């Protein structure tokens, strides 16, 4: 058992650190959920791509670095420690791309990935529907066969980045007689296509970080189906595991916040009233980092992420809220004043909801990790 960083990974980490020190924009970019900020974040993705740092876990032929999981974790630690911008491309890079590597065709990968890696095409996810939240298998939006493709109709909602994104991916019911997770097809859509209406939805911070998507017989060509028609649930599980598991929530962002929290507490004169919570937030963050190193080790040795990825999700969603609530309390009456801590706090509040609510994760742990009997479901 060790926590040693091998020479190659250390060299990669040092390269990342040096590049970020020279390139991270100052002052910070405006919110990516504004038109101006979205454009600035798109440009940032291109700068990352020029340094071959936008998609480090991808294969070299798609401008990645073939980074190991450990190297990716180190990349993220450096990235957030440097205060670099949020990743406007992350839905595509961390959810769609792994699906394309697992289930897509070479033609799809060649067509889609280069533009994704440079931020030229930004992807929104289109999972939730008004009647299908955590229970995603209840979705109703449909895809009807037509010449050379599918006609998509229905409604998606809470679609992250969709207010300004170029394209979206999600599941659609292609067999009208099917129920639950059968008869679904995984499709990629052009948000500028005829029949698409995008209604931005302002979030708690007032900016449209997500949108409602209305589809009225939107044509989707066959080349934009991932995997076989009707097999979408299985295809999507790749993506779901990536969202709930390691990929979207590396410890890097939380470690950076934890370090800033302890500094803030020091700058405020180490108030005794918040010492316990500051310490616990730091400790819980460190625990999540080490837990993730353990997961990375197991994955590197060929194990698969199972239901314990629900432990992962509860750990990070809890840590994120804990860090930011504690920081706002350390700030006391200044806590309400607009600041990166306020932004981070509002952002953290979404964590326990998306990607399967924390309550669904607890059910998963209880039933599939501990083996408790399933609740009777209709």
């Amino acid at each position, binding site marked *: *058992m*060790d*926590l*040693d*960083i*091998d020479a190659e*990974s250390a060299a990669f980490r040092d390269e990342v650190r040096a590049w970020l020190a020279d390139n991270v924009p100052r002052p910070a970019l405006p919110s990516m959920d504004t038109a101006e900020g979205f454009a600035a974040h798109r440009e940032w993705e291109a700068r990352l791509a020029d340094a071959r740092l936008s998609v480090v876990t991808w294969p070299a032929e798609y401008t990645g670095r073939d980074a190991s999981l*450990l190297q990716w974790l180190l990349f993220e630690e450096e990235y957030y420690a440097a205060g670099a911008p949020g990743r406007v491309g992350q839905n595509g890079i961390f959810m769609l791309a792994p699906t394309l590597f697992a289930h897509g065709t070479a033609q799809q990968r060649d067509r889609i990935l280069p533009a994704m890696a440079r931020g030229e095409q930004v992807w929104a996810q289109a999972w939730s529907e008004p009647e299908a939240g955590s229970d995603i298998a209840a979705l109703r939006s449909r895809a009807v066969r037509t010449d050379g493709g599918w006609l998509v109709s229905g409604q998606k909602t809470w679609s992250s980045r969709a207010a300004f994104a170029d394209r979206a991916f999600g599941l659609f019911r292609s067999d009208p007689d099917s129920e639950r997770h059968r008869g679904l097809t995984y499709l990629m859509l052009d948000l500028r296509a005829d029949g698409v209406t995008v209604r931005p939805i302002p979030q708690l911070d007032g900016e449209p970080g997500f949108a409602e998507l209305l589809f009225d017989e939107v044509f989707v060509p066959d080349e934009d189906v991932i995997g076989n028609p009707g097999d979408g649930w299985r295809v999507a599980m790749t993506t779901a595991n990536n969202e709930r598991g390691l990929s979207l929530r590396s410890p890097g962002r939380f470690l950076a916040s934890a*370090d800033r929290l*302890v*500094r803030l*507490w*020091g700058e405020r004169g*180490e108030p005794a009233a918040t*010492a*316990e919570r*500051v*310490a*616990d937030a*730091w*400790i*819980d963050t*460190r*625990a*999540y980092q*080490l*837990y993730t*190193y*353990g997961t*990375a*080790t*197991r994955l590197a*040795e060929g194990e698969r992420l199972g239901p*314990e990825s*629900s*432990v992962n999700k*509860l*750990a990070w969603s*809890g840590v994120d809220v804990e860090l930011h609530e504690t920081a706002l309390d350390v700030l006391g009456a200044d806590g309400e004043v607009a600041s990166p801590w306020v932004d981070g706090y509002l952002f953290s509040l979404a964590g326990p909801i998306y990607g399967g609510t924390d*309550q669904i*994760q*607890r*059910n998963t*742990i*209880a*039933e599939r*990790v*501990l*083996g*408790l*009997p*399933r*609740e*009777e479901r209709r």
Partner: protein
Amino acid sequence: MRFALSPEQRDFAAALDELLAGSDTPGAAREWAERRCEPGRKLWRELADLGVWGLLVPEEHGGAGAEPADAVVALEACGYHAVPGPVVETAVVAPRLLGGDELAAVAAGEAMTTVAIPPEVPRALDADVADIVLRLDEETVTRVPSDVDPDGRVPSIDAVRGLFPVPGHGVPVGAARPHAVEFGVLGVSAQLVGAARRMLGMATEYAMQRRQYGRPVGQYQAVKHLLADVTVRLETARPLVDGAAVTLASVADVPGADVPGAQARAVVRDTSAAKVAATRAAILAARTSLQVHGAIGYTAEHDLGLWLTKVRALAGAWGTADEHRARVLRAVRGGHDG
């Protein structure tokens, strides 16, 4: 980086589990509480056969010269099975305090060792049963005669634990190796994690058997979510304990004065973080397990109480969670200034 148990460590854990699961450890603990110690001593001899007491003893003194992470495996098993006696003191602290001859006896399982380290460890555990009774003040180790007056026993919330004050006028036996306290903190953290895992397991099993309103209580979300929360606390505490073991391994054989400041801070930071997280996990597991069991868990007859009272005792032993939080903050802040 390989941050996981090795195949050898997994085999070791399985061997410990097999031995202890077949040994009625709760029965031995109950006897130990009444100072009928033979079943407990038998357990200790069997653990000696598996090499537990010599893990951290250097090879030249008959030990295994193993890593702190191996001791974590052993102490987690001791915690899981409620092995009575000064397991932390003998397995991980004695090798920091004793010289060659005594260490050889420890490794051979012939020298159950206990220690008081005021103020963190004000009384020595089971000094009336132990073969070697020590006291550590700063760096100085003294030894007192092991014929302790049994009437001097201070009662503990955990009836199995016999607590004894150790007078300060023992015979000096030398200087402690560095980080003796941190090794103890690591050991007790591993023990707490093991106890937490056991109480979670007991609660899960009970929730599957116990039926109310026509279904197993484990089918209700209210119960499921309690147990899921314990699982998260436990699964995220264990890596901190392993991480502290890795950090301690990096300084175990280095004279204290030669350890760079950043590394010395990391030792304090990581062992203290482990104690805080292990304590929180164990206390949550205890409270939750009792709640899931209901009244039966509140009885002296049920074994849950063996673990429930032990983790409450261990929560205060080797520094409270709040003391360790303060150490974590000082260490992290020290890194900022330096």
